[in-house]
């Protein structure tokens, strides 16, 4: 299997990414980048909200359960992990 398919967890079929990867050459060829004056775009970690335990309403739980793709009675069905 193609390594990128594996990395992406996608069976991609005939998907062709060569047009997009042309951008890679463009970026490689950019020279003399002046970054003086740019502001850091990082998320500050000095103003975090407190962790608060909150219980979900029955309606919220129902919505989450309704989205589960496969169920058998009250069990949630997941793909087989151990061969």
């Amino acid at each position, binding site marked *: 299997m193609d390594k990128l398919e594996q990395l992406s967890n996608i069976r991609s079929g005939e998907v062709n990414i060569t*047009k997009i990867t042309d951008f890679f050459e463009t970026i490689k060829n950019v020279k003399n980048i002046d970054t003086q004056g740019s502001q850091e775009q990082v998320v500050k970690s000095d103003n975090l*909200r407190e962790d608060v335990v909150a219980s979900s309403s029955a309606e919220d739980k129902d919505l989450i359960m309704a*989205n589960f793709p496969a169920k058998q009675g009250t069990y949630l069905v997941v793909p087989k992990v151990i061969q």
Partner: protein
Amino acid sequence: MSDSTIQEIQTKLNNKEFTCTELVREKIAAVKASDKNANNSTLENLALKQAALIDEKIASGQSLTGLEGIPFGVKDVYLVKGTIATASSNILKNYRSPYTATSIQKLIDAGAIPIVKENCDQFGHGSTNENSVFGPVKNAQDSSKVAGGSSGGSAVNVATKSTVFSIGGDTGGSIRQPAGYNKVFGMKPTYGRISRYGLMAYTSSSDCVGPFAETVKDVAATLNVMSGKDGKDQTTVPSTSIDLDSFGADYDWSNTTIGVYKTFINHPLLNAEVKAGFDSLLDQLKAKGVKIKELDFFDGDTLTATYYIIALAETASNLSRIDGIAYGNRAMDRDNLVSTYLDTRGEGFSEETKKRIIAGNQVLSVGYSDEIYKKALEVRKGIEAKFAKDFAKEQGGVDFVFSPVSPLLAPAIGDSMKDPVTMYLSDMYTVGFSLGGLPTLSAPFVVPNNVQITAKKGADESILKFAYAIEQAI
């Protein structure tokens, strides 16, 4: 024409010219009757319940204020609790939102009424709204042309008056360009002004929530409601409310300088008609005393490459969570977990989305990460630094940068699928401002496409005041 459609409708509701229930029914009927393929689903029950509450308020003798009673549309990448949110994809075709996005909740709390989930490019991946499992959205003015994207359905609904305003999402131009192709206002605010909580993530470092509307004042009114810090989105920033009452005061035209990027207006892809319309607007502004200054900037190819490399990497990471295990349509009865993942995602995502995820994983892999991804981040810093210099007014900088929203006219439906490179390059005028996190308004002041008005970070109000002055003057 009134300078606020929202105010005009609210006045009629207060004067009991029609009820809110009648208004909502009329808008939902328009949405259903539309032949533009702009909508994925209606929110009829929710909307009619809210409309009834508004009617009770009017019946009790109270007047509506703010956004009370105003029907609006929501791009189908936002969560509205209990309703389907598909991102125009197969994989989430039956996904029911477990909560409501902060921005949408704020609008609902202010009395606005969501009536429809709008067609868009899948997960925001596209500039023509052809990458949708529900089919392409047709342009409001010419059904043979694309609506633009990714928020095409939202732009078309406002242009056809099916909604009073609509909420789109803009990562690299997804509000501004469809606003231009459909001749309405569309705003990408300063990055972080509006919470992204409940917006399905495409490129988290440049995703922005923003409105489409018919007038500048309506853009400002909706921004005011949605803005503000949110504990659920650590990238939100504090902002002050836009003072709508100060709009319309005499504008100081002669103390205003507009920058124009030479690399944009001299690019070979720029359509002659688009250029002529843009030049004509600049001439009208010059006649009012505005100064125009030509500026150097990165070329369109570099901007587009930088944006796409970062966007690919982030979307590959963001969409890795959608695998059909806890939610989403799962490929059933596969032999093992790996096959389940491969087929779930292979069948659930469109070709364009698969392309972006796979290329994004390549960008992030050993051998590419340093040379490509980190280099793109460095170029992004260079773009931010250039903006900081260009908008430093005290050092001879400009107040605003003007540009067309796209070098091209809206293409015919089907053409971009044959030539995706041109589609990517058509984003060259919008992506740079996204990388800088700058506020940008797409305004229908020129033909055939909109003009894009950009200012420094946090100067959303300055843009809207200037745009209002132009709206009233031309």
